[in-house]
């Protein structure tokens, strides 16, 4: 990567103006993944002085807001996040490489980068999560991930609606800190189940067909089915999710291996969510 200049705007408005007016400009985020590329950037925008590093409770809107420059270590150690959504967000980032890298990685970097291996995106996908680009209306994360990244707008924050949820997070990696071979997040609302699977190795996805098949099932009934030794294929949520989603090969493991562990990890995540409930 080569850079002509690095600027540090002191507000998001100023940052967005630079992004829109300066030729070949780009936002740095933490800068961690960018360094592996060979891109040339004329103006790199460092957002650390733009007031975007925060995790705040917004009781009026019944939501939590997370700024673009919040680091993964901030997410991991934040009490508000530990006490909401079953601690899903801290859990999803806690095993990413080491504390040193988590002190650099930012929420914005992973949301805009849309990395397939992003465990944060896996976790956020089962929450009622919205992406806010500066000067634009919030858009549901699931829709944001399907659309093209708006190049002229700057990512400002995430909004996560509070709701009573039991959650479970599971992943498989070769060694502690390695990138995951598969990541799974599950949320149990009052009825039904939400399932997100990441590192397929493509971008995390919801298992929408499987979720629809279990829409009205209460958590207890779901767990009862899974804990039954003679659980049928139809009742086996993990198996259904593994059948529905697509997987690919990469240097870490094969598509077949991912499909195999997906079923187990989804079921374990559901059981984990159920245990918390009890």
């Amino acid at each position, binding site marked *: 990567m080569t850079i002509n200049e690095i600027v540090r705007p002191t507000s998001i408005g100023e940052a967005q103006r630079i992004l829109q007016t300066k030729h070949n400009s780009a936002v740095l985020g933490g800068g961690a993944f960018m360094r592996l590329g060979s891109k040339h950037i004329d103006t*790199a925008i*460092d957002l*650390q002085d733009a007031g975007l590093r925060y995790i705040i409770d917004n009781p009026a809107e019944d939501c939590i807001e997370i700024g673009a420059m919040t680091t993964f270590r901030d997410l991991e150690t934040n009490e508000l996040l530990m006490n909401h959504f079953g601690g899903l967000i801290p859990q999803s980032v806690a095993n990413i*490489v080491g*504390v*040193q890298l988590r002190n650099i990685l930012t929420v914005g970097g992973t949301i805009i980068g849309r990395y397939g291996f992003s465990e944060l995106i896996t976790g956020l996908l089962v929450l009622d999560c919205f992406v806010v680009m500066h000067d634009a209306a919030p858009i549901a994360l699931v829709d944001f991930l399907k659309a093209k990244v708006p190049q002229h707008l700057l990512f400002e924050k995430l909004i996560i609606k509070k709701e009573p949820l039991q959650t479970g997070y599971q992943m498989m990696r070769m060694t502690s*800190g390695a990138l995951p071979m598969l990541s799974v997040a599950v949320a149990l609302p009052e009825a039904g189940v939400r399932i997100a699977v990441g590192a397929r190795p493509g971008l995390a996805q919801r298992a929408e067909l499987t979720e629809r098949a279990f829409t009205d099932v209460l958590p207890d009934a779901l767990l009862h089915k899974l804990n039954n030794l003679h659980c049928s294929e139809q009742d086996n949520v993990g198996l259904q999710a593994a059948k529905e989603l697509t997987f690919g090969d990469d240097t870490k493991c094969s598509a077949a291996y991912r499909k195999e562990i997906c079923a187990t990890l989804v079921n374990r995540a559901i059981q984990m969510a159920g245990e918390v409930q009890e």
Partner: protein
Amino acid sequence: MMQLFRINGQEISLACEPQTYLVDLLRQNGFKSVKRACETSSCGICTVLLDGRPILSCTLLATMAVGHDITTVEGMRSEIEDLTQFLSAEGAEQCGFCSPGLALTVLAMKKELQTPTTHNVKHYLSGNLCRCSGYVGQLRAIYRYMGVEA
């Protein structure tokens, strides 16, 4: 381009290009305790402290560190010597190449974690790789240093 850095408590004006990484800036200016190793943000050997928090100096652009307190082993001699006593007592060190990064991470951990468990310590240090010691001796020493019952 000259930029003002705060390294080990001292303001120093250093020549720094926009794409210079912190590890290179520090080594080029005599802070040789900072080692470069994996180049993939994985090993923790290049760890320095930024405002007291451990970060990978191979991953952070030096310009992003302007306005922050950068600390290397050279700036924490007495604290490092204290920790070294514990490591030596357990015969934990071998080649020593990973020691500066490990030592700074341990010092940051001691400040950050109030009453850590062995699990907390291992989790905090999982980003520091050592290719010759096997970790057992190091962990024994660090548990003692941290006052953690193993």
